C-alpha cells in the first residue's frame, strides 16, 4: 500500500497540500497503514560513501542537495537498517517474513544458518566435481539466494473479483514488490509446511533455495501452476477495471 499521510493524524489544518493520495487499486479496501511523518520529511541517507566524498568532488547538484538537507527534517532511520557493507535489503525482508512473534534473533540465526548450509553444500559439490564443472558451480550463497527468489517470482497473478454474486479468479499484472513478496511467501510456506517434523528450517530452506536456483522444486511448480491458472482464466480478464 502506498503510505499516504492522513491529515487527520496531524489534525485538520484545512490544507490538503502534501496529502499523497493513494491509488486504491482493490475494491472494498481502505487505507489502514499510514506513517506519522508528513510529506516534508526526507528519507535518511544511510550510505557511508555519500558522506565520505570530499567536498571538492561534488557536482553543483550534489552540493545543492547537501545544503538543502541541512534545512530539511529527516525521518529516523529504522533499527533494521545498518551502514554495514554486508547489509542486504532482500535478506532483511526475508528474515522479517520468517520472524514469528517478534523473535528477530531466532529469525536472523536461522537465516545465517541457511546461508552457511547453502555454502557448505556448494563447497562439497565443488570439491567433488571435475575441473570443467567447477566453473559452473556457484558457491556464493547470496547470488544463489537472489537468483532463486527471482526464479520463483510469478509474472502474472490472480485476484478474486466479486461480480454478480460470485467470486472469479481474474488474471492481473502484478507490481514488482507484490511479485517479490509472493516469491518469499511461497518459499517460506513451503519450507514450514512440507517438511519432516524433525527436519530443521535451515536445512529445508537451503534445499529449497538450491532447487529453485536450478529452476526445479515445489516453489517453481507453484509459480507455474499460477501461470497456468491465469492462462486458463484468460477469458475473465475483462473483469478487471484497472
Amino acid at each position: 500500500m502506498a503510505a499516504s499521510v492522513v491529515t487527520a493524524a496531524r489534525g485538520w489544518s484545512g490544507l490538503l497540500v502534501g496529502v499523497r493520495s493513494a491509488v486504491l487499486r482493490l475494491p472494498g479496501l481502505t487505507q489502514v497503514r499510514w506513517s506519522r511523518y508528513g510529506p516534508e520529511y526526507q528519507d535518511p541517507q544511510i550510505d557511508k560513501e555519500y558522506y565520505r566524498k570530499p567536498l571538492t568532488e561534488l557536482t553543483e547538484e550534489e552540493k545543492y542537495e547537501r545544503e538543502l538537507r541541512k534545512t530539511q527534517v529527516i525521518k529516523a532511520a529504522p533499527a533494521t537498517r545498518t551502514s554495514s557493507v554486508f547489509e542486504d535489503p532482500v535478506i532483511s525482508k526475508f528474515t522479517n517474513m520468517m520472524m514469528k512473534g517478534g523473535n528477530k534473533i531466532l529469525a536472523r540465526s536461522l537465516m545465517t544458518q541457511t546461508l552457511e548450509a547453502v555454502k557448505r553444500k556448494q563447497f562439497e559439490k565443488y570439491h567433488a566435481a571435475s575441473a570443467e564443472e567447477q566453473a559452473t558451480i556457484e558457491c556464493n550463497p547470496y547470488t544463489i539466494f537472489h537468483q532463486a527468489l527471482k526464479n520463483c517470482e510469478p509474472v502474472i497473478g490472480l485476484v478474486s473479483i466479486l461480480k454478480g454474486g460470485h467470486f472469479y479468479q481474474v488474471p492481473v499484472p502484478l507490481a514488482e514488490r507484490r511479485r517479490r513478496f509472493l516469491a518469499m511467501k511461497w518459499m517460506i510456506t513451503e519450507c514450514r509446511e512440507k517438511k519432516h517434523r524433525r527436519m530443521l528450517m535451515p536445512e529445508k530452506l537451503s534445499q529449497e533455495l538450491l532447487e529453485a536456483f536450478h529452476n526445479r522444486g515445489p516453489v517453481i511448480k507453484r509459480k507455474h501452476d499460477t501461470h497456468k491458472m491465469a492462462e486458463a482464466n484468460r477469458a475473465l480478464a475483462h473483469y478487471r477495471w484497472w
Partner: protein
Amino acid sequence: MATRKKKLTPPLPEAGHSSAGIMLKGMTRLISRVHKLDPGRFLHIGTQAPQCLAAHLDNQVAIESPRAISRTSENDPAKHGEQHEGQHYNISFQDLKTVFPHGLPPRFVMQVKTFNEACLMVRRPALELLHYLKNTNFAHPAVRYVFYFCSPKFKRSHLWVKNCRDLLQSTYNKQRFDQPLEASTWLKNFKTANEHFLSQIKVQEKYVWNKRESTEKGSPLGEVVEQGIMRVRNATDAAGIVLKELKRQSSLGIFRLLVAVDGVNALWGRTTLKREDKSPIAPEELAFIYNLRKMVKNDWQGGAIVLTVSQTGSLFKPRKAYLPQELLGKEGFDALDPFIPILVSNYNPKEFESCIHYYLENNWLQHEKAHTEEGKKELLFLSNRNPGQLERLCAYL
C-alpha cells in the same frame, strides 16, 4: 632407544617428538598433536570433559616474503618457532584420526570436511607451552599448565557430568557411580590413539573382573582396554585401571606421559545428574571423575599435565567468569594449586590477517564486500578478534 611416551595432552618434545599445541579458537581445549616423525611414539589419552575446541590453524608464512602469507610448510609442531607465529600448518587426515579420534569441536570437524584439509594456526601460547615442555625435567613431579581464555563463545555440553543417560552403581566401590557408555567410548578412542603402546605396557597387578574373567599380572595393557570395551559394565573400572597403571609406570621412566584434559573445571564443579530419589550427585561420586582427579594430581614424575578451563562447559558458574580461580572453585583450585597459567587471548592483528588470508585462499569468504578493506574492518569489529566469533561470521558471509 624407542622411548615411549604417553601423552595425554601436548606431546612432550622429548626425543624429538614434536607435538604441536594447538590453540583452539575460542574454545577451550588445547590439543596437542602427536607427531609421529621420530622414534618413540606417543600414547595419546585424551580425556575431555568439555568438548575440545577446534583449533584454527593458519598457514605458515614464508619467511622470505614480507607480506604475511597464511600457510607454512612446516608440519612438525615441535619445530615451530617464533617465526611461525600466526601461520597455518596442515595436519594429515591420518594423524588427525589417530591423535584426535574424539573431542574435536563440531565446528572444526565441519570445517575440515568442507575444506578437505585440517589446518591449525600456530599461536603464541602454544609456542610458550612447547618451550616449557622442551625444557621439562622429567625427574621432577609433573608440572601442570592451565590454559584459560576470556570471552568463550560456544555452549558445549559437558560430557561427563551432564546429560549422562545411564549411571550404574560402581562395581568396584559401592559409593560411586559408573558411566558405562562414556567410559567405553573413551576406551575405544584411547585404543585408536595409542595402539602401539598398548602391547608394550604391562600391568603390574592382578585384576579380577568377575567370577570367570581376570587379568593376570604382567599381561599387556591392551587386554585391560579390550576387557573394558567388551564388558561395558566394567568399562569405567577398566578406564580407572588404565589410568592408574599409566601413572604408576610413567614414574619409572619407560615412557613419557602427557595428560591433556579439556575443561578440567568440570571435575570439581557440580553435576546435573541425580540419583533416582532426585538427590544430586557430586563429582567425586562418579568413578571416572574420581580417577581423573587422581591423574591430574602431580604426585608422579615423568610427564606433564596440560589442562584447560572453559566457561562454556562449566555448569552453575557465571557467564563472564574466565579466570582459573573462578571457574575451578576453591576445591579445584586447591587441588591443582601449583600450576602455570597461560592466557589465550584473542587474535593479534597479524594473526587476524593471517586468518582472513587463509579463508580467502580457500574461497570461504564469498561475499564480494568481504574482500575489501571495509569488509575486513567490519569483520574485525564484529568479531572483536575472537577466533570463534570470526569463524562463525565468516561461515555465512
